[in-house]
């Protein structure tokens, strides 16, 4: 059974211009002990999706339809109190900016002890556990560093502390929202390697959000590609990156300058802009920017099967099958 199952989720924001349909029929699944990456550009709905999972949504956001199941149990029906019991215990999260995740006026130790408020342990035991977690994420001399304040740590260390805190309660699902974007490249590599090791040690599943294709390729088992509020492709990282079935995925991979081995002064781009999510275009959401656009694209494509574990929402896949 999958740890997280999202089925046909639609979320809208009420705006003066009308309903902004930020997520439309999103389905994805995070299997046990797997790392699933979500990749997509600004405006693809990554952040709305996460906030819907942990249900920390903007006041003008509404879940229109769909279901979110955690270990088989529907969580959209849970009360706020039940949700609160879930957050930090079953689902925890690492945010993008490590400089702003911690309380600046409390020591790291105090914060790490405080978040264990659910456990009936003595303070000494909780402190020992906190030190153990710091050691696990590779912070040297953890016992002494518990007495320090967040400002006494560098950005890379603070992100590792945030990961330690998120994993403290051994959650079933860790959501990491661009955890390395604010970090330098060499530190990014350290954090990714550490996340991989921790995932194996703690045995949790990870939903990893990033716009960096290289990081997804390096860390994740599976990848979900989102565009303008829809899932356009999903599958194993190998299938999707080696054999992209959706023109958007292909365009995204082509644009990655790290992908282009020959020096060029004319880098590939994706012409056009994402469509207005208040007044949605008819048919395929990517059609307006797609170089493979044809008559069939006037109708919205269903998720087609490339292979049993690789799917994409493009009319061309059905064509390829019959050809």
């Amino acid at each position, binding site marked *: 059974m999958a740890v997280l199952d999202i089925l046909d989720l639609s979320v809208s924001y009420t705006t003066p211009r009308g309903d902004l349909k930020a997520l439309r029929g999103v389905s994805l699944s995070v299997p046990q002990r797997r790392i699933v990456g979500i990749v997509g550009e*600004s405006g693809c709905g990554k952040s709305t999706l996460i906030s819907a999972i942990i249900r920390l949504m903007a006041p003008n956001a509404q879940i229109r339809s769909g279901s979110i199941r955690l270990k088989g149990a529907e969580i959209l029906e849970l009360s706020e109190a039940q949700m609160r019991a879930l957050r930090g215990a079953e689902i925890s999260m690492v945010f993008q900016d490590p400089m702003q995740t911690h309380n600046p006026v409390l020591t790291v130790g105090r914060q790490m002890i405080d978040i264990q408020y659910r456990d009936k342990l003595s303070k000494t035991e909780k402190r020992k556990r906190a030190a153990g977690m710091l050691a696990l994420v590779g912070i040297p001399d953890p016992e002494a560093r518990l007495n320090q304040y967040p400002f006494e740590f560098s950005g890379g260390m603070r992100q590792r502390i945030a990961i330690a805190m998120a994993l403290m309660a051994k959650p079933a699902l860790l959501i990491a929202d661009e955890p390395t974007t604010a970090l330098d490249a060499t530190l990014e*590599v350290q954090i990714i*390697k550490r996340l991989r090791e921790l995932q194996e040690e703690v045995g949790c599943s990870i939903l990893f959000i990033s716009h960096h294709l290289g990081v997804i390729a390096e860390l994740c088992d599976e990848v979900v590609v989102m565009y303008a509020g829809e899932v356009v492709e999903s599958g194993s990282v190998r299938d999707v990156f080696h054999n992209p079935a959706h023109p958007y995925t292909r365009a995204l991979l082509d644009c990655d300058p790290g992908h282009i081995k020959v020096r*060029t002064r004319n*880098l590939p*781009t994706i012409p056009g802009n994402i469509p207005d999510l208040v007044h949605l275009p008819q048919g395929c959401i990517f059609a307006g920017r797609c170089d493979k656009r044809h008559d069939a694209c006037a109708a919205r494509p269903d998720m087609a099967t490339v292979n049993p574990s690789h799917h994409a929402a493009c009319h061309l896949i059905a064509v390829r099958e019959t050809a």
Partner: protein
Amino acid sequence: MSTLLQIRDVRVRFRVRGGIFSSAGSIDAVSGVSLKIEEGTTCGIVGESGSGKTTLARAVAGLHHATSGSILYRGQELRDLPEAEFRKLRREIVMMFQDPIGSLSPRLSIKSLITEPFRIQGIKGRDLDAEAKRLLAMVGLPPEFAARYPYQISGGQARRVGVARALALDPKLLIADEPTAGLDVSIQGEMLNLLARLQDELGLAIMIITHNLSVVRHITDRVGIMYLGKLVEEGETETVFARPQHPYTLALLAANPEADPDAQLMRVELKGEPPSILRRPDGCEFHTRCPFVQPKCAAEVPAWEVSGEAAHRCHFPASWAQSEGRTA
């Protein structure tokens, strides 16, 4: 081709106030950097946060005072140039700042923003409507944009406005601080293509500050890698990418994972975190993180070795090739 900018041994020192446990002192954010930029070429400065790359750029643009060394622009010394004199030069040396929206005043229309340089420089007798139109067309934005305000445009469009404003007075040297940071990959390409096209059309020299090596590879002619305020490697971009000599360059190249799960990456994981420039390590300043460190590295400061079209600062250049039996 002649040299447009020649930087020699530039040092930018900031005084730091002492705290309860530390005494007042000074830090060298840029600590003896030399490089030159030829007319019409692009030079990339690469480094991580705190490496001094932005400080160096600001020193060249006259926004920080260089403590020592020399910055020659077409033979004219810029260091210690009075502000009134420097202001005249700002027609030729322009800077594009990192935060695209934050660098545009929210209360000015796009037209006012991109024609502001004419007002600041007191250039009279220009048809500002026509200039705004010309500049918008140059960066690929429709003329209607002149009437818009910064909050009505996207991040990518704000960057284009930044380029238009920087190029209003037909400068010779454009300093671009992280021109693609925070942009999606598809828009990043547009931005870099735009800079390349404008360079070809206008004969601009560009100094580009970035931490993204794959960007540098495509757009620059020469590249300098900075660590703790010093260059650790500098040379022709092709040469540096093909045969990196300094282990830090190698680590940066390796730290840029490819979008291919089967890529046989040469993993060079650096130990620990960058040291504080308040306490610079002895010997080679990179030795505390270097995966190929040897006893000599902690004891002796490596010299700046120039060989052909590249130079580096390492006792054991390209040592990974020998020690691991691999090639980069």
